């Protein structure tokens, strides 16, 4: 591992969110401003109640590694992926990513739901910098893999969730990323398709693609990953081999289940 180059470096990463989903309005801001002038500010700013989705996370991922991110709901897994993929800024700390990456968060990886499947293949590829002429060279493979040939000219808004994720996954893996961020994506679709996807991810792994995989499924993390990072309430609990991490993780979950 030592001779490999670091691909993802995360240093003291913290991400801060506002707990109460309160949208500041112009009216609210204006009254606040007037109150401050009058010297009786109520200090009930919308920035109250800080919530640290991630706190002081540091780790390094090397080329060709595939790392599973595990943790309970709300532990900060998706926030971590969103930060790694440049969708949102860290509140503190730094993140460095060396290479071409592709993110699949949730079902739709940036689709325009009004447009057809085919149009979305071009659209989604354009977001990642592939011009239509290049997409033409591999669009057949995408269609083939997604098993959506009959629905290609149907607007994506009429797709089932399984179909949307199949299309998203098919586009993503055909773009030959150097780094791929997957959020729970392999657990959608029927088991045959899941197997096909896992096969493809393993192929990417063989090609030295770096994989960061968020999942609740122990089986799929064990199958795809050779390292795991366990997040709990925004803190990094453990970073190590899949076996070690799952041992500690399941122990904690069982402990919680029996005490409550």
């Amino acid at each position, binding site marked *: 591992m030592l001779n490999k180059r670091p691909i993802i470096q995360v240093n003291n990463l913290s991400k801060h969110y506002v707990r109460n989903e309160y949208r500041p309005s112009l009216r609210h801001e204006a009254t606040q401003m007037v109150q401050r002038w009058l010297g009786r500010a109520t200090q009930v700013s919308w920035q109250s109640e800080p919530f640290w989705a991630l706190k002081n996370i540091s780790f390094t991922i090397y080329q060709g590694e595939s790392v599973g991110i595990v943790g309970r709901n709300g532990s900060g897994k998706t926030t971590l992926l969103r930060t790694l993929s440049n969708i949102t800024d860290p509140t503190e700390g730094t993140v460095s990513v060396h290479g071409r990456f592709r993110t699949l968060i949730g079902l739709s990886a940036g689709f325009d739901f009004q447009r057809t499947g085919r149009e979305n293949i071009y659209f989604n590829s354009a977001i990642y*910098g592939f011009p239509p002429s290049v997409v033409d060279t591999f669009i057949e493979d995408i269609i083939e893999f997604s098993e959506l040939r009959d629905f290609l000219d149907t607007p994506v808004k009429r797709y089932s969730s399984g179909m949307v994720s199949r299309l998203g996954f098919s586009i993503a893996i055909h773009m*030959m990323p150097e780094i791929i961020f997957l959020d729970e994506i392999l657990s959608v679709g029927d088991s045959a398709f899941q197997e096909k996807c896992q096969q493809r991810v393993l192929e990417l792994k063989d090609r030295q693609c770096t994989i960061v995989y968020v999942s609740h499924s122990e089986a799929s993390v064990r199958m795809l990953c050779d390292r795991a990072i366990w997040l709990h309430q925004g803190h990094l609990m453990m970073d190590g081999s899949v076996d070690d991490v799952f041992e500690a993780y399941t122990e904690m979950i069982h402990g919680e289940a029996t005490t409550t």
Partner: protein
Amino acid sequence: MSSPIPVEQIIEKSPQHLQAKPRLRLAPTKGWVSLNFQELKEYRELLFFMTWRDIKVRYKQTVIGALWAIIQPFLTMVVFSLFFGRLAGVPSDNIPYPIFTYAALVPWTFFANGLTNSANSLVSNANLIKKVYFPRLILPVSAIMSGVIDFFLAFVILLAMMLFYGIVPTVNVIWLPAFLLLAVVTSLGVGLWFAAMNVQFRDVRYAIPFLVQFWMFATPVAYPSSMIKNDLLRALYGINPMAGVIEGFRWALLGTETSPGAIIVVSSLAALLMLIGGLYYFKRLEKTFADVV
């Protein structure tokens, strides 16, 4: 299972920035930010794609499609001619009132639609912003660029009207692209401010129609700026950049005798300031869009 295309083959064909292996380094956005035009250039394919997408949506999902681009300024022209031209007797620099106001309504409609669409561009693409990274600037820019087609359609009617009234454009017509550019800069400058604010404050969405309406009456669309006799005051009128755009259009196409030089200089400066301010404000907030929208 179909065999995948070799990695090398795709990398060879993919754009420069993908081969160059971007070194992405993220840290909290603070202070003055770099505008990073290089990145925008790298994503130009996406810019064209989004612009084209907006155009297609507009013309495909409406019943009379392209006609909307003409109906909007044309009917406004009819109403203005009736109420301001005929009934109120507003002067029109010795040019038939209908074409006097239509020559202003063409760039005005472009500006107003561009402003409205770009201001709403981030909110209406919330789904994309939350899921993938791309320079967010592409959204408001493409919203304005897609209006250029509408502009040309409305412009064709303007040419037809000039033919009808027997107006021959002066040589100054070569300046017309510059005035269109000034309109683009203005609507982008203002659009960027409102697009970024709209993410935080949804009030903006409701405020914009009013703003556009008030702004139109503050712009010499229905009346000539020559109603202001004081030269200095008239030049200062150019602080509203659309005053410069419209006086420029009339001067270049209809040959109005009131030289708009001073107004246009002031307008260009004002528009540039708005754009630079808007760009910084937008870039500063860019990374918070995904969290807030």
